[in-house]
C-alpha cells in the first residue's frame, strides 16, 4: 500500500462497485466518480506461490492453474489470455506489483476456500496487481477424477480466475440450509456460483453458458457484439422497481441458462452476449445464497417466482424491446 493515495484494494461484489445495468455482476472501480469495469488491458501475468497445502504441492497448484487458465482462454467468444511468469516464494496478498496465486493457511476462515483481491489505480481503473489466495486449511485434490472428501483444486481455481478476470458471482443455483445453518448446493448453473459443490465433485471444471456470456461481455472476441443479442427489461413489485431481482433467461433452442440481476432502483435488468433467438424469462428472489455475496445493500426477496408474460427475442447485434415483469409478494 505504498501508493495508497492513488490505489485501493477492491473488495468483491459490492453493488456500488458494480458496473451499472450492462450485464452480469462484474467487478468495478470508481474512477473520477464513474464506475468502470475491472478488466485486464493485456494478457494476465501471474506467478504461482510454491507453498504447499498438505499433500498438494505448489507444482500441483501450478498445473491446476494452467488447466483453469486454459479453460477460460478456450472460450471462443472471448479474448482472454494468461501468461505464466514463474514460481515464487512470495505468498499472495503482498503488495509487490505481482499477481500471485497461492495457498495460505487461514484457519479462522473456516468456510472460505479462496478469494481474490485487487490493487487498482483509481486514477485510471488499471489493475496494478491481483492476488488469489486458496485456504490451505482445506483438504485439496488434484486427481483427474476427483477424490472423495477433498475439494477439487482446479474447480476452485477456475472460479477464482473468473474473479481475477473481473467477473462477480452468479446466482444461478439452488441451495438448501443444512441443520448446522450452512448452505449446501443442490445444483448450480455457473462456475461463478458463490458456493462450491461438495468435496469430491469435479463438475465445476466446465464453464457454463452463464460464465461464457459473462466473460464474453468483459472480453468480447472480434465480431461478438454484432453476432450476439441482448434482452432488457424491468422487474417491478407494486409498481416500483425491484433492485436485486434475479432474472434467468432460458434459450429453448439450446437449453442455455444465463442470469443477471435488476441492478438499479428502477428494477432495470440487462442480459447481453446471448445467442440470438427467443428466450423464456424467470424472475426469482435471491434466496439461494447469502445476499452479501452479491450486494452490499439490503434487497427485497419477498416475492414469488414469476415468468415473463411472453417470450423475449434477443436480436442479432441489438437488444430486445424492454419488457416489464410484475412480481407479487409471497
Amino acid at each position, binding site marked *: 500500500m505504498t501508493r495508497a493515495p492513488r490505489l485501493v484494494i477492491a473488495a468483491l461484489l459490492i453493488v456500488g462497485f458494480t458496473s451499472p445495468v450492462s450485464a452480469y455482476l462484474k467487478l468495478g472501480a470508481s474512477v473520477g466518480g464513474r464506475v468502470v469495469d475491472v478488466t485486464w488491458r493485456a494478457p494476465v501475468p501471474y506467478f504461482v506461490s510454491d507453498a504447499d497445502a498438505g499433500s498438494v504441492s505448489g507444482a500441483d497448484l501450478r498445473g491446476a492453474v494452467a488447466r483453469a487458465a486454459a479453460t477460460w482462454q478456450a472460450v471462443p467468444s472471448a479474448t482472454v489470455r494468461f501468461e505464466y511468469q514463474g514460481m515464487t516464494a512470495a505468498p499472495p496478498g503482498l503488495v509487490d506489483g505481482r499477481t500471485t496465486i497461492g495457498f495460505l493457511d487461514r484457519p479462522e476462515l473456516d468456510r472460505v476456500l479462496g478469494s481474490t483481491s485487487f490493487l487498482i489505480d483509481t486514477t485510471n481503473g488499471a489493475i496494478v496487481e491481483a492476488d488469489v489466495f486458496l485456504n490451505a486449511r482445506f483438504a485439496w485434490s488434484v486427481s483427474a477424477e476427483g477424490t472423495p472428501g477433498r475439494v477439487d483444486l482446479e474447480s476452485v481455481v477456475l472460479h477464482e480466475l473468473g474473479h481475477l478476470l473481473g467477473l462477480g458471482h452468479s446466482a*444461478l443455483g439452488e441451495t438448501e440450509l443444512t441443520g448446522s445453518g450452512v448452505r449446501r448446493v443442490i445444483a448450480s448453473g455457473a462456475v461463478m456460483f458463490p458456493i462450491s459443490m*461438495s468435496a*469430491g465433485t469435479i463438475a465445476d471444471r466446465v464453464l457454463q453458458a452463464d460464465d461464457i456470456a459473462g466473460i464474453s461481455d468483459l472480453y468480447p472476441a472480434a465480431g461478438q457484439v454484432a453476432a450476439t443479442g441482448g434482452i432488457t427489461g424491468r422487474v417491478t413489485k407494486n409498481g416500483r422497481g425491484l433492485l436485486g431481482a434475479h432474472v434467468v433467461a432460458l434459450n*429453448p433452442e439450446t437449453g442455455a*441458462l444465463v442470469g443477471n440481476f435488476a441492478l438499479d432502483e428502477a428494477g432495470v435488468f440487462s442480459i447481453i452476449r446471448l445467442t440470438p433467438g*427467443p428466450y*423464456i424469462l*424467470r424472475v426469482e428472489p435471491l434466496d439461494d445464497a447469502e445476499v452479501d455475496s452479491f450486494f452490499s445493500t439490503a434487497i427485497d426477496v419477498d416475492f414469488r417466482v414469476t415468468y415473463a408474460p411472453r417470450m423475449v*427475442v434477443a436480436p442479432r447485434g441489438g437488444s430486445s424491446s424492454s419488457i416489464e415483469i410484475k412480481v407479487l409478494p409471497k
Partner: protein
Amino acid sequence: MRPHRLVLEGGVVWSGGYAIGDVDARLRRNATGSTPPPFTLFSASSDLSRAASVSARIGFTLTPSLAIEGGGSFGMPRVGYAISQDPEVGAQQIDGEQLTQYFVDGALVWHLPMRLGSRVRPLVVGGGGYLRQLHEARTLAETGQVFYGGVGARYWIRGGLGTARSFGVRGDVRANLRRGGIDFEDQARVFPTVAVHLFLSL
C-alpha cells in the same frame, strides 16, 4: 380444364397447431462423478398455434388434367409455451410471441378423370416451398421448407370444366411436412392445413 389457361386464386389457409419442442432448464447437480444426473429448474413445452393465412396463387393448365401453380401466403401464428416442473410455482401457460410468417411454394395439381356431378372435379395436389418466420418485432428470421400433399376439389359457380372465364371455389386438405423454421428441437414436424380459394380461369 382447358389446357394452356391461366388460373388465378385467392383465399384463406388454416393451419393446425403443432408442438415445436420441449426443453428442460437444467442445472448441474451437486453429486460426484463426471456426469451426474441434471437438476431440472423447470420445463417448457412450446407449440405453434392454429392460424389463418391469406393466400394468393396463379396456375397454368398444361393438359386438361395437369396444372402447375405457384403462390404465397402470409400469416401470424403464435408461439406459446407451457411451464411445468417448477417446484416454486405451479404449471402455467405463457402467451409466447407472435410470429410473422411467409410461405412461397410451387405445386403440381392433377385433376382426376372423374366428375362428381357436372360442376365438381376432384384433384390431387403436391408441392413444396420456402418458409420464412420472423420473430416478434421482426428482429430475427428463421427459415425452412414445407413439403405437402393433399386432396381437394373444384366447384364451378359459373362456367364449367371446358369453358373460358369460368370461376368457382377450390378447397383442399393437405398434410404438411415442415423442416427448419422455428423449432426448439430442430425436428421435422407434420401438421394439417385446410385451404379454401376462389378461382378465376382466364
